[in-house]
């Protein structure tokens, strides 16, 4: 369903991605590698936030390399940022309801948002301003908001970074639930260990190159 063909990216003279070839048919794919290896850049390029310098990105047979972030999002690809970007002056439930608004009425959106809040375990904080959440709760909120966009493919950029053991476990549980629901995802992490039990296939990224491993 997603296919990257010879994708490269250069930032002021630094080659970040060199000829990435990557394919995901279904399920969860994990990418691990050290900082600066290009994991985040690859996800950003898929999500349309960065433009690749060359190469093609096929999603369900269509080339999405030149599309804007909102077009890509509407096709069913949603990104969860490494550093959470909540709508910080809106309440938790409004944050989650916003993606639903594009499809359904206000009331239905709020109801569905409530379900999602329950799903990610933020049910008792729905009326709190998002800016007041802790780091772990913000990550859950981000995942909830991404789910609310009803994606076919989720891009999770280091979902475990910045979390203590307890919150990391919560995120892991939620990712497993998402997997059971049949959503596909690409997940990145520092170490393979973090991903081992949730991904179907894992890749290693180093110096802008990707290899199965």
């Amino acid at each position, binding site marked *: 369903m997603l296919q990257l063909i010879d994708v490269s990216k250069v930032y002021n003279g630094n080659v970040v991605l060199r000829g990435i070839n990557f394919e995901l048919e279904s399920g969860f794919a994990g990418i691990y590698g050290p900082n*600066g290896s290009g994991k985040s850049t690859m996800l950003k390029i898929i999500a349309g936030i960065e433009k690749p310098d060359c190469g093609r990105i096929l999603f369900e047979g269509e080339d999405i390399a030149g599309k804007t972030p909102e077009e890509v999002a509407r096709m069913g690809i949603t990104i969860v940022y490494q550093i959470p970007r909540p709508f910080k002056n809106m309440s938790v439930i409004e944050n989650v309801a916003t993606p639903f608004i594009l499809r359904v009425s206000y009331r239905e959106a709020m109801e569905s948002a409530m379900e999602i809040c329950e799903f990610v375990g933020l049910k008792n904080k729905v009326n709190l301003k998002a800016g007041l959440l802790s780091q772990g709760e913000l990550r859950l909120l981000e995942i909830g908001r991404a789910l609310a966009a009803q994606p076919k493919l989720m891009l999770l950029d*280091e979902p475990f970074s910045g979390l203590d053991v307890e919150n990391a476990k919560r995120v892991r549980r939620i990712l497993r639930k998402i997997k059971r629901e049949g959503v596909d995802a690409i997940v990145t992490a520092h170490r393979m260990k973090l991903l081992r039990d949730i991904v179907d296939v894992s890749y290693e990224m180093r110096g802008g190159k990707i290899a199965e491993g």
Partner: protein
Amino acid sequence: MLRADRVRVELNGRMILKDVTCYLERREIMLIAGPNGSGKSTLLKCIMGLMESKGRVFLDNVEITHLKPSERFKMGITLAPERLRVAKNLTVEENVSISGDFQEALEIFPELGPLAKKKAGKLSGGERQMVVLARALISKPKYLLLDEPFQGLHKDLRVRVVNMIYNLSKKCGVVVVTHDELDEIFLMSDKTCILVGGEVLYFGDSEGAEQLMREMFM
């Protein structure tokens, strides 16, 4: 001794640092580890005085909490900031000579020689990191705070910087913040401070942190 005493930072109603206390002597290396967003860089900024915070900071038993960053610099604290921070429209030479003599920087990183007249904004990541490090090193600090010093560096350069940190610790205190490639720095550090979500999870001798570090990062 450089000591941060119950440093606390609140931003828009959210706690970024919760009563962090840590200290190091001169001729020691302290590693500050922790996941992204756990407040490591914020702690360094508080020690440097770049951020408003509650709590106190002492340098050799003198309280410096109310001093400006420029005054703290003159007392011997230098910060090499993260994200390859250079003055983009200034040349490499100008960038470095804010804190000392450019010739000394050349002794540390001869690679900067041919780049002297180039705008720092046009450098690659590794070259920028060299500028950042050179600028910090030639200021002859008593305490050096390094925020992600290995960002953008290649393998061989990384080894050089690790050795440099070790040599530096013979005469000054070094604080290193990093969340990547911990092994080499961890093994030579005297103290370790692990931050998670703005709280100190562990602070003390590095030997005692080994088990925890292996669990969390390695």
